[in-house]
């Protein structure tokens, strides 16, 4: 087993991986950009190395700096987390060359599944159902225009190197193709350092169902069932769950087997996810392989009881998988909500700044994977994900009420977050019935304004503000001692009119 792992990431996922290392008696080394010196992952790691300035291209995407950091701390392996270099075959190759173990698939598999166009061809040959689309990445706009015409509008622009919605756009009108491609390329370049994009047929009324797969270095592959991720905004997943309400046992088994086959055809090892689109007639199409740990991996962990990060580490260290397909079971229901620093009342603009106060929810069946804390600054340079709230209960109905309650008990003050929005999403009748498609948010939450505030609630808020004003020098530890003699607004007139009854 490894003695020390370098985590080439930041935020909640870096924190999650550091904890998994700890549980296995492995030392964890963090890397950080100049903007992240005070980030949580840096505070809790055994060692921490600064790898460059704030922009991701100069730090978290800087292969030289990361390899040097691994050398410096004497790490044997690098866990890339998600995003950044996690699906970068050049980085995996570099690690192999430097005799550092990349905790993820080997570079050849990564290259194949990361090249969304080539992997589609491979899947097509292997008889895996796919969506009509471009066979090759093109340079010229004219080629994209011809291909879009051949496939038929609406078409989807997708980043060749990517995932997570970055660079993706739906084009309904041919006139929008050119500007869409330009923007998609820029976003792809900024997020992945590779601007290649391709087109495919856009399927309407779809559900997004993906299968988690684990494969060891000896060709043994198992799937850990599905996650439904149909609740998306701008093609970004925001609520995920397992199991999916769209699958029956036969379809689940068929899709699971297909997912396993996809990974075997790709010669894949370590943890990965096979994404499918499911249409209303229950036809499913292979979308792509996410060759990394997924943001939404916790829902799978909660229903299967398998710790995916620990399995990644075990497999990377050369151990055989301890699971056979038969002894992986789905138990109960799990839901995840992604907590983003975005303002739902203002077109989801990113909200940077300082978290003045944070209180996380807790209780039976609640898990909180978090990268932030009271007093931390949210930099503008990175993805706005702050934390993930995940609940488990014995069935979906109970999981929904548990999630609503947990979101209600979740307090972040100082910046805007998606918490209130998510609460209304999970409480929506269509969501409760499980009748969801990837258009759910645009169909039901386009003009979301939040709940009406009652006068009683406002009055309580006013009382709280006034009490806090009157107690702004309150120090709990000194409440009974010297505090009494400190000046407070109740004593010092200041700008306030006291004794208002004169």
């Amino acid at each position, binding site marked *: 087993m490894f003695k020390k792992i370098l985590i080439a990431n930041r935020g909640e996922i870096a924190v999650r991986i550091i904890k998994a290392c700890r549980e296995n008696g492995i030392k964890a080394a963090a890397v950080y950009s100049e903007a992240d010196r005070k980030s949580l992952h840096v505070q809790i790691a055994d060692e921490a190395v600064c790898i460059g300035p704030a922009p991701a291209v100069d730090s978290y995407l800087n292969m030289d700096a990361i390899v040097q950091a691994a050398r410096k701390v004497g790490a044997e392996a690098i866990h890339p987390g998600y995003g950044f270099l996690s699906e970068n075959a050049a980085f995996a190759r570099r690690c192999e060359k430097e005799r550092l173990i990349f905790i993820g698939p080997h570079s050849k598999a990564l290259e194949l599944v990361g090249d969304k166009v080539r992997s589609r061809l491979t899947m097509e040959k292997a008889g895996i159902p796919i969506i009509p689309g471009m066979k090759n990445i093109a340079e010229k706009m004219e080629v994209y225009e011809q291909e879009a015409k051949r496939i038929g509008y609406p078409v989807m622009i997708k980043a060749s190197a990517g995932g997570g919605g970055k660079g993706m756009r739906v084009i309904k009108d041919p006139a929008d193709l050119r500007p869409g491609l330009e923007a998609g390329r820029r976003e792809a370049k900024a997020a992945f350092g590779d601007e290649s994009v391709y087109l495919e047929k856009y399927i309407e009324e779809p559900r997004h169902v993906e299968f988690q797969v684990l494969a060891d270095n000896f060709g043994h592959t198992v799937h850990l069932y599905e996650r439904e991720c149909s609740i998306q905004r701008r093609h970004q997943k925001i609520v995920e769950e397992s199991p999916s309400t769209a699958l029956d046992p036969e379809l689940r088994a068929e899709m699971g087997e297909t997912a396993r086959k996809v990974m075997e055809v790709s010669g894949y090892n370590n943890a990965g996810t096979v994404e499918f689109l499911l249409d209303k007639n229950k036809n499913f199409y292979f979308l792509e392989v996410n060759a990394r740990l997924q943001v939404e991996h916790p829902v799978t962990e909660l229903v299967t009881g398998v710790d995916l990060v620990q399995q990644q580490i075990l497999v990377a260290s050369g151990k055989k998988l301890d699971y056979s397909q038969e002894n992986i079971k789905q138990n109960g229901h799990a839901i995840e909500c992604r907590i983003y620093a975005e303002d739902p009342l203002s077109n989801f603009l990113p909200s940077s700044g300082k978290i*003045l106060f944070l209180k996380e929810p807790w209780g039976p069946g609640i898990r909180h994977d978090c990268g932030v804390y009271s007093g931390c600054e949210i930099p*503008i340079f*990175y993805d706005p994900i702050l934390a993930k709230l995940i609940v488990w209960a014995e069935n979906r109905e109970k999981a929904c009420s548990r999630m609503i309650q947990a979101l209600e008990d979740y*307090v972040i003050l100082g910046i805007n977050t998606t918490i209130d929005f998510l609460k209304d999403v999970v409480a929506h009748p269509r969501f409760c019935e499980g009748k969801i498609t990837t258009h759910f948010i645009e169909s039901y939450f386009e003009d979301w304004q939040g709940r009406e505030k009652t006068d009683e609630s406002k009055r309580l*808020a006013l009382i709280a*503000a006034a009490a806090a004003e009157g107690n702004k020098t309150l120090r709990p530890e000194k409440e009974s001692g010297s505090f009494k003699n400190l000046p407070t607004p109740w004593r010092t007139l200041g700008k*306030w009119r*006291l004794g208002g009854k004169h």
Partner: protein
Amino acid sequence: MGNGGWEGSTEMEFEYLIDNELRKISLEKKEEGYIFTEGEYQSPVDIKFISPNILSLIVEGRNVRIFIARDSDIFHIYLDGQRFVVREPAAFEEDQAGGEGRSLEDDLNIKAPMPGKVIKVCVSQGDAVRKNQTLAIVEAMKMENEIKSPLDAAVKAVHAADGDLVDSEKILIELEKSES
């Protein structure tokens, strides 16, 4: 009030804006708890600070836990599953440029909606622009946001270049009313 301080009957009046609505309230400190008054409404309130950010309130038989954080003159408050912003009127007036009362001047001085990096300035000095035309693209947290013109106008000056890091106060582009 003299040296009365917390003891005796000290009443304080407060003026706050909550959801852009001006409210005048008063709190009177008693031996036990407070008396809250707003216009005709009056009620005893039991207020306990659990920590600098957590208050326990018992009012008219209701027991409420309130979370509060202060950012200079603004209180961020969470209770009953909702968030409230309570601010002093003075702080609001300074801040109003970003609020609902947009003036023509606000429309003509184009700022970034949030701190970020200018990806592309799409117009040059002297250009005529239509309402909703994209003036610039600003990226923050890896999402691109298009800044659109709020009106038909002409570009008077451009103060930002591709690649600039900007905060939400900086004027990126100045517009002027079109002649026609």
